């Protein structure tokens, strides 16, 4: 692009941000009209780019296990031992996860093992476990918060039954299904809803039923 083309391109962005912008003297009226049309396309793209909900409130992200469960703690030393038992370097594990589509770097793997793994979410924990040929429970533990309404919900027989159903329909270990249901419950709270236990169970029941229904179709 020559200098003039670069300047015209900058005007498109400027006009996209400020539709009332007046055209500079060095731009012809037909160029300015075209810039206006292109600027509107940019504005439409930008507006639509905001359409996705925040990850923690994204129903699809919750269903796919992409929202961290604050009740799950990663045992960093156990994770490292599991990786070493599998005979993998941090780089090798990274490459395997990249092959599965996850955008992680070797520095992430090392950070999970030595500093912080709070950003790990159920789906990625499952992928790591599969590549290490182990179970998620071998390097995670569940943090109980005694007495909280959510913990009372999670420890109940109805919740455990839903967990078993979800595990069966998704063909995943029970612990993974439990993590997803916990995330779904937490996502509801993030949206500002604070249902009582009965309402919360009804929501989770509906969540599992939808997945079962789709599986049967």
């Amino acid at each position: 692009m020559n200098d003039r083309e670069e300047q015209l391109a900058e005007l498109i962005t400027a006009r996209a941000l400020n539709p009332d912008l007046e055209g500079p003297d060095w731009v012809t009226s037909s160029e300015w009209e075209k810039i206006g049309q292109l600027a509107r396309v940019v504005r439409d793209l930008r507006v639509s780019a905001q359409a996705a909900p925040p990850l923690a409130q994204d129903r699809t992200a919750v269903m796919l296990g992409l929202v961290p469960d604050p009740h799950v703690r990663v045992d960093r030393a156990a994770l490292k031992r599991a990786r070493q038992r599998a005979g993998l370097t941090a780089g090798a594990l990274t490459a395997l996860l990249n092959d599965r589509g996850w955008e992680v770097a070797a520095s992430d793997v090392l950070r999970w093992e030595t500093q912080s793994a709070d950003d790990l979410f159920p789906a990625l924990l499952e992928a790591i476990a599969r590549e290490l040929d182990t179970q998620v429970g071998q390097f995670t533990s569940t943090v109980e918060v005694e007495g909280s309404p959510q913990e009372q919900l999670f420890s109940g027989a109805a919740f455990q039954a839903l967990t078993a159903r979800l595990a069966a329909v998704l063909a995943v270990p029970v612990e993974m299904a439990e993590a997803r249901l916990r995330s779904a419950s937490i996502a509801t709270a993030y949206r500002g809803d604070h249902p009582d236990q009965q309402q919360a169970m009804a929501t989770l029941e509906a969540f599992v039923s939808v997945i079962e229904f789709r599986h049967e179709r």
Partner: protein
Amino acid sequence: MTDTTPPDVGALYLRYRKILHAVAFGVLQGAGRQNDAEDVVNDVMLTLQESSPKTTVTNWEAYLVIAVKNRARDVLKSARVRHAGGPLLEHDEEDPARDLAEEAAERIDSQREGALLWDALADLDSRTRQIVWRHKALGESSSSVAKDFGINASRVRQISLEALDVLREPLMKKGVQR
């Protein structure tokens, strides 16, 4: 991701969720159905989780964008049929008159500005779409985008400009006044 290893569905969604929601939103907004966008995306991703595509997918970004676009159009089509009071026909050849009405209505709907833009976006080649999406929609710097595509920043700006021109064309043909 290699061609032979199917990626994890969650990984795909993390990578492309913004553009998928944008496509659904854009197609449905023209008919005032943007509140259905999240359901459309959810439907596509859960379908993918339940069963892999029948053919090998070499470009998942393109596959998902088109899947969401088509599913959003299905929502518009079924809403139009329900509004008309008729059942959802399995085979349109049973009622040629309804075929023509359906086709005309679909053309009218597809002429709505929002759907035109997203049709055009879905029709771009995947590389161009990703570049214009990241640079113009998400506001990433041209140098940042350039790194991932092995080109220089000026080329990113040029590709983006050419893509915007392509995206503008359907709006001009339909006489959409801005």
